[in-house]
Each structure stands twice: as C-alpha cells, then as structure tokens.
C-alpha cells in the first residue's frame, strides 16, 4: 500500500499489548498490506497461510514482509471449511504469538480479508480499558439461530467423516443414519458446548490456559471430530477458563442465508466508516478505495465510541429477505414463484365489481369520486381493455389490446397491480369477460370481489335484441356466472368476497355500498351522502317472466314480482336510498 513507503524510513515503534493472528488463503497481497499496516503500528502479526496455497506465492508474501521484525509465519495446515485444520492453524499461530511476543496481552484473530476500520491505536485504547476482558461470541446451542444444515447440538454428538462441501450426499446420509440408530458421542468432562463467530480477541491468560491446560489433548481429540470446530473450540473452552467473557465479536462479519460471509465493496465506504467497528470482513480484494482509505493514517476515527453496526445489519438482513421472500406480487426474470408460493399473488389490494355498473348508471364515476381510487371499466372485456378514461395505454405501458392481455392474463393483472402500487385499482367484471383469472383472483387475499348476481340481465333487458338472441345470451351468461360463483364460494377462496342477488341488492343498496367503500378507504369512515343513480327497472320482473316462458330459468336474480309497480316511483329515481 502507498502508506507503507513513508513509514519505512521512520523507526518501527516498539511492540505493544495487541497482536494479530492472521489466517490467510487468498489475495495474499491484500493480507500483506493489512499485516504491514498493523506491524508498522507496533502490533506483532503471526500469519498462517493455508497449506493448499502454492509455495511461490507464500514465498512472495514472506519476501514482501521481510523488512518487518515483528511478523512471523506459523506452521501451515490445510484449512478446509468446517474441519479441524482451521483450529489447528489458529492454535499454532497463537502459540507463536505468545512465545515470541511477551508484550502482547490481547491476541486478535483476523483473516487475510479483514480490514481495520478504525486506527489501531483506538482499538488498543479500547482494550487497555478492558485488560481482562475476552471478546468472543459464545452462546449455547439453544440460543443460536444461524447454524447451517439445521445442526446445532448434533455438531457435538455425531461424527462427521465426510465433507459437507464435496461429499454432501454421504454427509447427509451418515447424519441420518446416526440419528436413526441413536448414536451419541460423549462430551468430555461434561463441558457445555458453545458456538459463535470464529473471529475473537482473547487475553494471554485465557489463551495460555486453553493451550497449556492439562486436558488439551483430550479436548483436541474430541473437537477434531466436531463439525465446524472453528466456531466452537475456543467458544466452548473459553467458558472453562475465563471469568470475563464479553460474548460478541469485535470483527464486523455478516453471513448470508447460505452461511457465506457478505462481502464489502468500495460503495460500502460510508457505511463502514459510520459503523465504528474496529475490523470488518470480508473485503473484496479489488476494493481499492476501501484499502486505500482504511489503511492510510488519515482515517481518523469518528467519535470513537462503541461499535455500532446497526445500519450494516439492516442492509444485509434486507438483502437476505429480498433473496428469501422477495417482493410480493412481482413476477419477473429472477422471481417466478410456483403457485401458492407467491407470498402474495399481487402487490396490493384491489377491488372487483360485478354487476354494479349494470345496476347503477354512473357507478364508475361515483366510485372514483367517493373512494379516490382509479376506477376502470371491464378490464377483461372481450374486445378491448377498458382502462379508466378509455386510455389506449396505461401504467407500466400496458396496452389495451385484448389479444395481448389474453395472451397472458395473469401477467396482465399482476403487472397492472404492480405498476400502480400506491393507487388502489378498481375494475368492473362480468360473465361476458375473460374468465381465466377467476381462480387466481378468488385465491388472492388482495382481491375484494363484490358480486350482484344476475345483474348482467339488466343490459339485456334494456337491449334492442330479438328475444331469441336475448334468451340464448342470458342462458350463456347465467351458466358462466354460476361457475364463477361456485369458485367464489369455494372454501379455499382467500379474497374478500361478497355476493348479493339482484333483488336483495336493490332492496337496500346503500348498506352494501357503505361496507365496500369503508373497506376500500377505511380512514374516511363517513356516511355516504351521495348515492349512484339506480337504473330504471320498471318491467324487469315481466322480462324475467318472459325468459321463463321461453324455457330459460333465471336463477341468479332473486325474486322480482311480475307487476310493474314493485319499483320505486319515477319521482324518486336518482336518489333512491339516500341515507342521512
């Protein structure tokens, strides 16, 4: 790094009370930069390089750091994830640290992809105020919520001869077998297993008690066969020897839903700065700006308070939620949930009205005014999509072409609701429309579906068609609506569904309207003062009787007497059931 060059001429400060053990396996040039940064500031560094790393790159690393008197390299072990090698490497490097640097009081376990976020002198000061404290996340198996593979306590009681990464099938089979036969390893000395982040900062007293304790051989033999011992060896044994465990890691390290560490990039610079954490991992090796910033001495600490990774926590937990749950109602190239796994079939609540625009003359305009929502005509009409205001294109650039809509009706509706998030959509529906989404909507908890059954007969009643055609059309529409109603009445339906027959609805239309409107805009809980205009149904009873006489049995309208005077008199038309 650039900052190292000027320091070369200055004498290296004496070794202090803090030493770093660094486990590295990739991007060794970055590990070298970080190690140099610490070493030049009086912190001895012992580096372990994974045995699987090519010798020539280790030699280059050693040559790069040869000018530093307080850097050592420890015996190399192969560090396959989840195996004992990582613990063995840590033990060996720590022993070097304790033996060769007597001034060191706290040993900080870091990785080659760690980066100090605050000046090391602040970390030293922080530790000097807490000289006896061991910083290590160490929780019992009941308390952890983050383990992989669902293995908590079983990490300690089963055997794991197969690699989880490369022999997953055997790994899983062998675990299942042990569970079935009830195999259990004994835990030595009745120690209580603890788990926690691999990255700790422990005192010389604690470490030497663990590494030089009388039972070390016993414990090593046991942990050698525990799964992921780097998350449990020190975490468990620290409880045996330390009275002063602060159960948290000083290293900011977050894991995603697969248990892989989140990676920091240049664009995280401000977040990292404000986190007040001492060390973070993992840093992307090419994050030049992060390395240049945090390895320079200009990086003065902020207030220098306690680490506060809250913002970063939120960022990463949101990312995991995005990956696992996604955005409800969104269907796109990388989110296409199987049916019933949508976590919300659509993005927002919407309302479907069946028969209302047949019964009221100005229903759409009235509804828009009363509820402040977007009210469309029949979106699923056979000839074209009747967008509000008769528009040819709507939000999201949706086309009014019926062919495009019917080509993928589900995408059409999901798109519309997604593209209009923040503005509730209402639309008219009826048995003359495309029925493909009846189940989709009935199972959608965002849908509010209100049906006046049989209302489709009103336009027929008012039409100028020949009666034979009317009868045929009535029979067709009735059949379709009956099928739709059976969907809506199905026990699995999740939408808010209300069904009235035509007769009972016009008996008292204001009450249903009030209920629906209250549900759409609950905040404006007020009585409706203006009603939509009820269409004139004089003679409708006779019309139904004529259908019956021609052999078509209308069953969805309820009871309409044949006499003409069953309807309100003409003088009251227009404001028929105004409720004050």
């Amino acid at each position, binding site marked *: 790094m650039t900052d190292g060059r000027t320091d070369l001429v200055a004498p290296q400060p004496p070794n202090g009370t803090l030493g770093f053990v660094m486990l590295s396996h990739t991007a060794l040039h970055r590990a070298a930069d970080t190690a140099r940064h610490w070493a030049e500031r009086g912190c001895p560094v012992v580096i372990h390089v994974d045995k699987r790393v090519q010798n020539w790159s280790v030699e280059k690393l050693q040559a790069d750091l040869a000018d530093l008197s307080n850097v050592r390299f420890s015996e190399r072990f192969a560090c396959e994830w989840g195996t004992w090698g990582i613990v063995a490497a840590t033990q060996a490097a720590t022993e070097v640290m304790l033996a060769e640097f007597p001034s060191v009081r706290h040993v900080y376990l870091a990785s080659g992809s760690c980066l100090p976020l605050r000046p090391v002198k602040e970390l030293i000061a922080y530790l000097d105020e807490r000289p006896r404290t061991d910083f290590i996340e160490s929780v019992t198996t009941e308390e952890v919520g983050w383990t992989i593979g669902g293995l908590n306590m079983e990490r300690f009681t089963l055997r794991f001869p197969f690699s989880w990464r490369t022999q997953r099938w055997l790994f899983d089979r062998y675990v299942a077998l042990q569970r079935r036969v009830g195999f259990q390893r004994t835990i030595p000395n009745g120690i209580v297993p603890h788990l926690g982040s691999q990255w700790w900062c422990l005192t010389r007293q604690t470490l030497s008690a663990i590494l030089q304790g009388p039972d070390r051989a016993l414990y090593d033999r046991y942990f050698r066969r525990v799964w992921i011992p780097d998350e449990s060896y020190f975490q468990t044994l620290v409880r045996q020897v330390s009275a002063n465990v602060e159960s948290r890691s000083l290293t900011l390290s977050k894991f995603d839903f697969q248990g892989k560490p989140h990676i920091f*990039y*240049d*664009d995280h610079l401000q977040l990292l700065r404000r986190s007040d954490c001492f060390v973070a991992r993992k840093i992307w090796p090419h994050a030049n700006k992060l390395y240049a910033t945090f390895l320079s001495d200009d990086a003065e600490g902020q207030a220098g308070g306690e680490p506060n990774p809250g913002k970063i926590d939120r960022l990463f937990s949101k990312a995991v939620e995005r990956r696992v749950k996604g955005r409800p109602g969104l269907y*796109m190239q990388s*989110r*296409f949930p199987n049916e019933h796994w949508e976590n919300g079939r659509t993005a927002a609540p919407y309302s479907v009205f069946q028969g209302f625009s047949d019964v009221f003359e100005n229903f759409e305009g009235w509804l828009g005014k009363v509820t402040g929502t977007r009210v469309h005509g029949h979106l699923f009409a056979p000839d074209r999509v009747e967008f509000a205001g008769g528009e040819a294109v709507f939000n999201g650039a949706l086309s009014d072409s019926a062919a495009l809509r019917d080509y993928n009706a589900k*995408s059409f509706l999901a798109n519309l609701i997604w593209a209009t998030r923040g503005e509730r959509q209402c639309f008219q529906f009826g048995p003359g429309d495309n029925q493909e989404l009846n189940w989709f909507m009935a199972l959608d908890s965002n849908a509010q579906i209100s049906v006046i059954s049989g209302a489709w007969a009103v336009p027929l009643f008012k039409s100028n068609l020949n009666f034979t055609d009317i009868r045929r059309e009535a029979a067709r529409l009735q059949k379709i609506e009956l099928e739709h109603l059976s969907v809506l009445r199905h026990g699995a339906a999740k939408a808010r569904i209300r069904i009235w027959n035509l007769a009972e609805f016009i008996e008292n239309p204001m009450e249903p309207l009030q209920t629906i409107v209250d549900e759409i805009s609950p905040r404006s809980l007020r009585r409706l003062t203006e009603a939509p205009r009820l269409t004139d149904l004089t003679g409708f009873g006779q019309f139904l009787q004529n259908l019956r006489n021609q052999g078509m049995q209308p069953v969805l309208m309820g009871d309409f007497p044949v006499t003409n005077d069953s309807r309100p008199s003409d003088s009251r038309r227009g404001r028929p059931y105004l409720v004050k």
Partner: protein
Amino acid sequence: MTNVVNRTGAIRGDSIILLCTLRNERIRLPYFLRYYRDLGVNHFLFVDNGSEDGSAEYLQQQPDVSLWSTPGSYRKSRFGMDWITALQRKYCHGHWTLVVDPDEFLVYPFCETRPLRALTDWLDTSGIRSFSAMILDMYPKGPMDAQPYREGQDPFEIAQWFDSANYSVKRNPGNGNLWIQGGPRARVFFPEDPIKAPALNKIPLVKWNRAYAYVSSTHMLMPRGLNLVYDEWGGEKASGCLLHAKFLDTFAAKAEEELKRGQHYADSAEYRAYRDGLKAQPDLWCKWSEKYINWRQLEILGLMSKGNWA
C-alpha cells in the same frame, strides 16, 4: 469460419471474455468496446458475418480483440450460435463469458460502482453458474430517425425510454427457462399476434464449461439447470438487464437489409412486422413510458433484482 486475428494468447486464467457476432455495425463499435472495457471485460471474441462497412478492419486494430470471419448463413448457423459455441468450447472453458449483440449493454446491480469481476467473484462464491439479464428495449421519444446516432455516442442519450411493467412471463416446461415477451415491440408491432413477439429472456453471463451449449440464441442453455436463474419459492435471485439500443435511426435501414437477406428467426417475421409497424406508427413512445435513470430504478421497478447481493 476463418481466423482473422488471434490474440487469445492474452487470455489469462481468470479473464472475463465477451463473445459477439456482428454484421455491419461499424458505427456502434467504439462505444460498445469502451462500455465493456470499462466494466472490466478482458478479451473480446468477435465473429464477423460478412460486414461491408469496415467493421472487421476496425476490430482487427483493437489490442484486446480476436476476430473470426465467415461468409456463411446466419440462419443455418442457428443464428450465429454455432460459431459462438465453437469459440466458447475452444477458448472459454472455465471462464466467465458474456455473449451479447453489438446493440446490447449489460447493467447489473451496483454496476456503477462495482466492476463485472465483483459480480463474477460473488457468483463464484455463491456457487451460481449463470446470470440472467432480460432484454430491455429502449427507444427515443418521437420518430426513430429524428436524432441521428453519432459514432462513439452513448446510444441511451437518444433511446432513453422503456416500458416498465408490460411483460408476459411464462415458464418453458421443457428447458425450464422463463419465456418473457412484451415491451414496446409487443405493444406496437404485435398487438394482435402476441405469440410472435420476440423473446426477451436472456442468460448472457455464464461460467463456461465446454460441456455447455446455448440452445436458442442466449435465451436458454443446456444443461437445463443453467436456465434456473429464477427463484420458484417466492424469493428473488440476482439479475440484470440488457439495455437494447436497437431502436435508433440505424434501425430502418437495418430492418430493410435484414428483410432482404431473410436470415432471421421465423422468416424475419419480426423485421416484417417492424417495417409495417414503422410505416404506420413510428413512435414507440407513449405517455406511460419510463425515462431511464440507472440500475437502481430498474431494480425498484422490478425489472431486475439485487437478490441477496448487498
């Protein structure tokens, strides 16, 4: 297919390689190369299918380009995929490869601040082999020929607009990939015949293995596991977009030429529809068109996703 210039010796173990087939795209090349070099593409493999406008001569001079040329039939080579597949098998085993057309520009989460290698490194550690980037058709406001494209210019200074939520998504049960159609092309050129609207789903970025093959353009791959770039249980996987700079003033001439050659998919039905559509209604823009800002906007609109990359 004959080699014109071979600089593949410069490909290193971790190089990111871009592959591209072209014909008469000289005017687009300077910006195209600059865009992908800036993202961190290390080497370009081009197949020139009979350019007459100096494309080949220009590419030969580029230090990070290897060039092949073929007079063969675009259609008979499965729309160029046979050529690309041969090069992938020979030069791309174990590399991240990006296969795009000269008018396709990849955007992915954080592309303004993180180079392509940050993405491929993350995909590697996440055990992901293929990355989805659907085509997003970009268009100008007003007639396509109103603002001529100048060499070296960012085409999205002209084609700034796109459809934000006008896409049909279906699953292709055979290959497991999604089939996405829609956008301005479906809206303007295929409103009565949507099934003919071009596919927009693409999987252009793949950690290549010589056992892999693209099946149809970069829409789908074999083995079919590579097509599962989407989550089926409600979550979102990370994805990007290919901004498509097709609808510039260069388009009309291209459509005319390609129609004459008849070398495109389904007897160039697409180009025929364009020509008819272009004559009738040359403006793809509508009042609900969205103006392009950046990848975050596309993410918020749900056209692409960060997944769990943060």
